[in-house]
């Protein structure tokens, strides 16, 4: 117990926890993309998939939600604590700084985290529980999806959030792997083709749905 606490107390331990929870959440996000794309197979297929989750797989769904909630809590707690340490580590800023390697994704990772956290709350209220949905029908996931995303404001919000998740995955997938010490040596360590592919897959996969609804492909 002692040694686990000492590990959690260190900057490396917290980053490793962020890495492990981050990768778990990314794995789930990929499943979510695959699930969403069922919408293109029509209302019956999509509602069938949704019914499967809420019917026979109900226990698994609950368990998965608990695991995700735990991951999120650990990930956010560690990031807040690390951000505080990092702020304290340089009390006096430079008059000039010229970043040489940092990417837009790495520099906006914390801001992006806030965007995603806000998005997750709104998204759950919108399409899972329905409080902010204009016409939420229990057990008609396809209807909820299409009607919910037909509002231009909601669709725009989803599209912005998906850019954010793409950037988060681009930096996060790569750095999580490294923070777990799994990366092998490389002559160009900043290159990350796998993380880039994953980021594009998630961004495009998720963005396709609101775009398809707006264009009338899904109705």
């Amino acid at each position, binding site marked *: 117990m002692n*040694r*686990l606490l*000492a*590990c959690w*107390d*260190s*900057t*490396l*331990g*917290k*980053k*490793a926890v962020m890495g492990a929870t981050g990768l778990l959440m990314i794995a789930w996000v990929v499943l979510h993309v695959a699930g969403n794309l069922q919408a293109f197979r029509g209302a019956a297929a999509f509602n069938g998939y949704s019914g499967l989750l809420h019917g026979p797989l109900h226990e698994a769904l609950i368990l998965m939600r608990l695991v995700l909630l735990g991951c999120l809590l650990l990930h956010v707690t560690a990031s807040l604590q*690390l951000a505080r*340490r*990092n702020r*304290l*580590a*340089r*009390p*006096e*800023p*430079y*008059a*000039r*700084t*010229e*970043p*040489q*390697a*940092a*990417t837009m994704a*790495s*520099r906006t*990772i914390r801001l992006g985290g806030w965007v995603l956290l806000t998005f997750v709350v709104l998204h759950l209220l919108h399409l899972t529980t329905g409080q902010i949905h204009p016409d939420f029908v229990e057990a008609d996931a396809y209807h909820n999806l299409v009607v919910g995303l037909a509002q231009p404001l909601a669709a725009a919000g989803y599209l912005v959030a998906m850019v954010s998740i793409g950037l988060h995955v681009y*930096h996060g997938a*790569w*750095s999580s792997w*490294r*923070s*777990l*010490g*799994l*990366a*092998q*040596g*490389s002559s160009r*360590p*900043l290159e990350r083709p796998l993380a880039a592919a994953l980021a594009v897959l998630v961004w495009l996969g998720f963005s396709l749905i609101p775009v398809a609804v707006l264009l009338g492909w899904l109705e």
Partner: protein
Amino acid sequence: MNLTLYVWRQASAASAGRLSRYEAADLSPDMSFLELLDVVNERLTRQGEAPIAFDHDCREGICGSCGLMINGVAHGPLKATATCQLHLRSFRDGATIYIEPWRARAFPVLRDLVVDRTAFDRIIAAGGFVGVSTGSAPDANSLPVPKTDADLAMDAAQCIGCGACVAACPNASAMLFTAAKVGHLALLPQGQPERMRRALGMVQQMDAEGFGGCTWHGECMEACPKEISIDWIARLYRDYIRASATRPERVAVEVAL
């Protein structure tokens, strides 16, 4: 050539500092960056002003004493080059150059451009060494080391401890330094007995000194005059996680502060 300099001047650790403007005229492009400061200092001394304090020693890129933030880039615009090896030909005639000290809570400014880097020494003292039995010298090559491991260890052992990684990191993290110092020993047979204790002890000391954490921007690697790779940081994570999970030996590391 002529340059306009904005140099951080700070009389002591306790006093507040500010950027002062200096005009440097009739410079040779073949002067080193530190010679530029020497020239400015001669003039300041003649005028009865305090010269600009800066750290330097070997002036050939091997000791790690020098280190300046030049126009927002640690060690200036030339890659894989310490400040002492940078020449004025890397700048345009008439350019304006901002010169600031390394900035980190763990590297307090002592005066002008000189910072206290003894935090690095304390990280080394917390495990960056190997125990050897004294007495007669061991036979050469009595411990075989695979060539690839020896080469790789040498990549990390090149670290001169200048602190550019900390200076360049947006989080003022000392991960690249610590990773290099843990990593080169972890590859060699001589480094094995203390390997786990070393990773735990040096990381603990690094955190205690008040450096920030790694967020994988990669700035440290770009700033490093010895081009030490961020792959060493992944190796440090590997050793640290393994040491935390197994802790094969009792650890009694004193945090020296």
